């Protein structure tokens, strides 16, 4: 059907959806890795410093594979189709000049409104309890998500899912163990982790919310039916909370928007840090 003008609009739509989908996954992994990396050298005990860095390294590896794939998708698009995809002037100049993009262009040259990551992952580390709660919610979701993505009709996403599932299974074990340890540890730790899981609960709904991109990808057999993961996710969470003697948060309004570029105030600072060198000394190799 190549070249059939009637197919061009749905084709472009599908291409954009796949690109958004890939970027959204990449952004999640990158922002999560960034947050965990902030702990490096500041952990409560050396062994945990090392564990966090391991997870951060896995995440950055996932982010790189996904950004590389997104860059390839972009490089295969005709210039006309990608001139207005992003808002960043430096990025658009590269696109207009017909330059090939790479993983770093996508991580370092998009501003927050073009980032499609979840609100959850950009939440600050605050303390060990918040860090653990954030990881736990995210890991429990990603484990189910990658399991589903293993059946993707898109070979690249399928491959990334297979590799990442092993990693995220370990991440989930680590964060689950910490939830239990803190919940069933001292009174102080119990209180701290209960507060953290309550406070971050409002960012968990977004993980299961189907945007137009999610819907298009699920229908095409490329993406995962996110809403369908919720039941299993909740059961897994409940199971760990029970072991941890923690209460499941209820009746909390769910925040969303990250997947469509509406972020909290935190992402801007993450990107200011992350993109500082690329912005100050543009266009160089490092």
């Amino acid at each position, binding site marked *: 059907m190549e070249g059939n003008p009637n197919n061009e609009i749905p084709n472009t739509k599908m291409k954009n959806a796949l690109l958004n989908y890939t970027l959204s996954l990449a952004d999640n992994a990158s922002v999560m890795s960034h947050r965990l990396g902030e702990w*490096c*050298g500041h952990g*409560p005990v050396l062994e945990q410093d090392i564990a966090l860095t391991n997870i951060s390294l896995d995440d*950055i590896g996932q982010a790189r594979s996904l950004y590389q794939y997104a860059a390839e998708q972009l490089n295969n698009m005709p210039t006309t189709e990608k001139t207005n995809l992003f808002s960043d002037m430096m990025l658009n100049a590269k696109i207009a000049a017909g330059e090939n993009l790479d993983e770093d262009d996508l991580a370092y040259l998009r501003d927050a409104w073009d980032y499609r990551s979840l609100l959850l992952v950009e939440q600050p580390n605050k303390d060990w309890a918040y860090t653990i709660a954030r990881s736990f919610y995210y890991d429990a979701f990603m484990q189910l998500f990658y399991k589903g993505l293993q059946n993707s009709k898109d070979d690249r996403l399928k491959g990334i899912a297979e590799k990442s599932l092993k990693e995220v299974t370990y991440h989930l074990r680590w964060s689950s163990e910490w939830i239990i340890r803190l919940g069933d540890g001292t009174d*102080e730790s119990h209180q701290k982790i209960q507060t953290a899981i309550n406070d971050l609960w409002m960012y968990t709904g977004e993980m299961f919310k189907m945007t137009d991109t999610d819907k298009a990808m699920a229908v095409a057999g490329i993406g995962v039916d996110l809403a369908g993961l919720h039941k299993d996710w909740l059961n897994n969470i409940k199971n760990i909370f029970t072991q941890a003697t923690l209460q499941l948060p209820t009746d909390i309004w769910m925040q969303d928007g990250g997947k469509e570029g509406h972020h909290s105030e935190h992402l801007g600072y993450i990107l200011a840090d992350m993109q500082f060198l*690329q912005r100050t000394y543009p266009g160089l190799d490092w």
Partner: protein
Amino acid sequence: MTSFEQHFEDKINNEVNIEPRDWMPDDYRKTNIRQISQHAHSEIVGMLPEGNWITRAPSLRRKAILLAKVQDEAGHGLYLYSAAETLGITRDEMIEQLHTGKAKYSSIFNYPTTSWADMGAIGWLVDGAAIMNQVALCRTSYGPYARAMVRICKEESFHQRQGFEILLSLVRGNATQKKMAQDALNRWWWPSLMMFGPNDDNSPHSAQSLHWRIKRFSNDELRQKFVDAATEQAKVLGLAIPDPALKWNEERGHYDFGEIDWEEFWNVVKGNGPCNKERLDTRRKAWEDGEWVREAAMAYVEKRKNRSQKAA
């Protein structure tokens, strides 16, 4: 000399390792505890200046490499604390000594990392200088220390390589990047030379440590080796070492180099370096903030033990 002492001396003289359960003179034990714990603290405090750039690394690849590098240093700290623990001191006691200022760590980490090029300079020079020391220590007389060093040395060459590679990318870049690299070399060169410690005639512990084979080479020998190697590497980078006295000496077969600013050296050792306070405060804060976490982990283990005892 008692027969214990005689036996110990024989082992030292015959290049046989001393092991945790062997008899050893008190001073030998103390010297090893001091040196190994100081070494461990250096690995841990050393995570901070490089950790300072993890979130600002200029590419995902560099970020991943830097993360892995700093993580290695945490691992080194672990190996070394474990080695020191075999001498009858706990990790918590050692950390306490670090936090009260009783134990020292390498002064090099009291300098600030103000640009990305510092990640290159630290890997190349600071890890490079550390390697000189550590390769020698693979044959130190205390077994657990020597074995920790063998593991550590395997990872250190990656550290130096990644640093050198960062600088190589910079000197192959534009004028600003070259300037960044030269600026980093200017700031890190002399502190790196100081890493080998005082001159031999001013080094209080050296003679005994050499006799006991805790040390294998003198401070000045290692420093000379480092200058010789780094000078050649600087040529590859096309960077200028900030020492007008640096000159090849045909007769000695070594580079001559200028006098270290010993006033600065002792000043930083005494706590007056640009970041001494900040580094220690950061370590203390991490430890204090983590206290409830460590307590929770211990309480949880206790609860589990009690429960399984009841069940049995």
